[in-house]
């Protein structure tokens, strides 16, 4: 099919060969599972179990709350050992409320919702509810609740469900393995999602460096006339939602709009597989495929991991560390987040665990900008990183917004290409964080103002009522006195 060029981008050393030929292996059940209540974007889930409760595999442990949220299920049967604050798999290293499950080894399934016999006869709402109930979130890394995205069909006119199998991050091969080993499930999941969204067309986009995936998905999709398989060029960040949409449709998503506004909804291939399992078998999202890679790992692998497994157990399963890593990263090396240590759990959005050596990280001292313009020519969003970083360095956030910092997708291409090793993407992440903080402060200030005004109005009203009551009482007393006087004068 016809493809369109995308702007900028880089061609890093992909290093996928470390794990691309390693079939998915299942991890034996760990001794304890740690399930944070927030493994997704939006509101944290609300815990519905108590320490000491016996739970079955697939049972709900925490319910989603609010419009954007997702429930959490037991990855295996066992006992709730504790609910405690445990270090989250997050660069801050801050603690998060976590359910600790002690597996009993029986791995017994609980009551699952009935499979939908014919998903294509079900209403979109039924499929959406099933996906929401299964706790499925975007598995490419962003972990946005998938049911919310499946509901976009109601509010937008959609043409294409774009299944993202680009996997443009170096090292990661989990999506590649899913497509190779579960091609039929991915295609079935995609058809179910397209039915829920009401999109007539499905495009499955895969980068050309995954020829086996392309071939197997093409074979699995051959029976369906509405599915196209696109072999997109190898170019980072091809797998970014907006860029993949542009590569496939030629349409650019306007700033601060969704791809749905131009008729495209993007889902990850692993999400499609999770939807297949939830709809066809009623199974919730309780495990995921994780690529464990990097030169500091003895035997890199693709592993099917029960959610809540500590990263240290994954590393042990891969033969341990060959040397002390310089960085441990959750996700890919370009957009992933550094982990504070190995003592954090795998969550729904963990696509990879990379233990990188000092040689791979290639840290260099920051040097002054030489204004070479490399960052400008490679920025896939058409921004000017050099100018944005300069104004952010001087805390001039208004100017940063004017230069378009909120349109930056934090792909890190500029940091990668910079010959002076300036951490440009970190400047932009810092600016976005500061701007969000300012926004929260502004909202709080508005709230405080409103409350003060309401209180003043209430006090004023109460004072007025008091004055009126006093006046009425005085009038009544005067009237009484007058009557008494009249009675005294004229008995």
């Amino acid at each position: 099919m016809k493809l369109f060029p995308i702007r900028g981008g880089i061609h890093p050393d992909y290093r996928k060969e470390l794990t691309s030929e390693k079939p998915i292996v299942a991890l034996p059940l760990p001794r304890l599972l740690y399930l944070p209540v927030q493994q997704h974007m939006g509101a944290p889930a609300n815990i519905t179990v108590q320490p000491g409760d016996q739970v079955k595999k697939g049972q709900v442990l925490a319910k989603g709350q609010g419009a954007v949220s997702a429930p959490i299920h037991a990855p295996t049967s066992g006992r709730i050992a504790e609910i405690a604050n445990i270090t989250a798999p997050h660069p801050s290293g801050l603690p998060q409320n976590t359910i600790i499950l002690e597996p009993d080894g029986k791995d017994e399934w609980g009551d699952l919702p009935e499979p939908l016999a014919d998903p294509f006869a079900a209403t979109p709402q039924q499929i959406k509810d099933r996906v929401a109930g299964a706790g499925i979130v975007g598995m490419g890394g962003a972990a946005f609740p998938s049911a919310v995205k499946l509901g976009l069909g109601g509010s937008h006119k959609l043409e294409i469900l774009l299944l993202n199998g680009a996997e443009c991050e170096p090292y990661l091969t989990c999506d590649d393995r899913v497509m190779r080993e579960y091609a039929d499930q991915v295609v079935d999941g995609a058809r179910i999602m397209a039915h829920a969204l009401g999109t007539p067309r499905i495009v499955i986009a895969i980068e050309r460096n995954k020829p086996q995936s392309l071939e197997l998905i093409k074979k699995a999709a051959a029976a369906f006339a509405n599915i196209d398989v696109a072999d997109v060029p190898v170019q980072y960040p091809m797998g970014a939602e907006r860029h993949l949409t542009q590569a496939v449709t030629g349409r650019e998503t306007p700033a601060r709009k969704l791809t749905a506004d131009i008729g495209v909804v993007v889902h990850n291939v692993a999400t499609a597989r999770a939807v297949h399992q939830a709809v066809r078998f009623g199974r919730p999202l309780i495990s995921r495929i994780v690529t464990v890679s990097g030169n500091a790992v003895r035997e890199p692998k693709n592993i099917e991991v029960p959610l809540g497994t500590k990263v240290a157990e994954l590393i042990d399963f891969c033969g341990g560390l060959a040397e002390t890593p310089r960085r441990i990263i959750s996700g890919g090396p370009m957009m992933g987040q550094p982990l504070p240590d190995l003592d954090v759990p795998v969550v729904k959005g963990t696509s990879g665990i990379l233990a990188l050596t000092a040689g791979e990280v290639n840290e260099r001292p920051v040097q002054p900008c030489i204004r070479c313009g490399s960052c400008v020519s490679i920025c896939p969003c058409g921004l000017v990183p050099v100018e944005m970083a300069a104004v952010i360095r001087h805390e001039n956030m208004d100017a940063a917004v004017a230069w378009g910092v909120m349109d930056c997708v934090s792909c890190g291409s500029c940091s990668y290409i910079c010959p002076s090793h300036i951490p440009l993407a970190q400047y932009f992440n810092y600016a976005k964080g500061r701007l969000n903080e300012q926004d929260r402060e502004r909202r709080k200030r508005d709230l405080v103002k409103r409350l003060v005004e309401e209180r003043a109005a209430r006090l004023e009203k109460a004072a007025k009522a008091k004055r009126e009551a006093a006046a009425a009482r005085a009038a009544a007393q005067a009237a009484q006195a007058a009557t008494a006087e009249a009675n005294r004068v004229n008995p």
Partner: protein
Amino acid sequence: MLLAVGSLTVMGAALGTVLGVAARFFAVEGNPLEAEILSLLPGSQCGQCGFVGCGQAAAALARGDAKVTLCPPGGKAVAEKLAKKVGVRVDLSEAEDRGPMVAYINEDLCIGCLRCMQECSTDAIVGAPKQMHTVVSEVCHACAKCFKICPTEAVEMRPIAVTISSWHWQKPGALQAPPQVH
């Protein structure tokens, strides 16, 4: 010569009329800077600046009669914004930035006297006579009036802890510490 005097007189009269009319019709009521300053202040009328409320403080700032560091609940952040708005330079490096704070009532010490509740301008304190009180931290803006009035020193001003949802990346500086691997 008469021609010159006459034409200048006519021009003077005409332009004077235009200016007079413009002054009347395009007159700005109040100082627009005052409204802009007011929007930067917390608006809780706590009175700690020495003025009756934020409006009076904004007016004084707009006239140049008050310092930009006048607002204790606003702290360093508001002082910086005010300095930028009124166009003065202020050295805040000395000012200690306590960051955002919130009031907290030590329930063991609270005697339920209601004084803090009546003092609170945002209704952030809930309680009843002879029952312990508590602070709804989402609406507390740390004016510290309750802290000053409490007869048993049960109120503490605590910094708001950073959570995962409020955390963000720091500005690039020193290289990051390597992960802790045991």
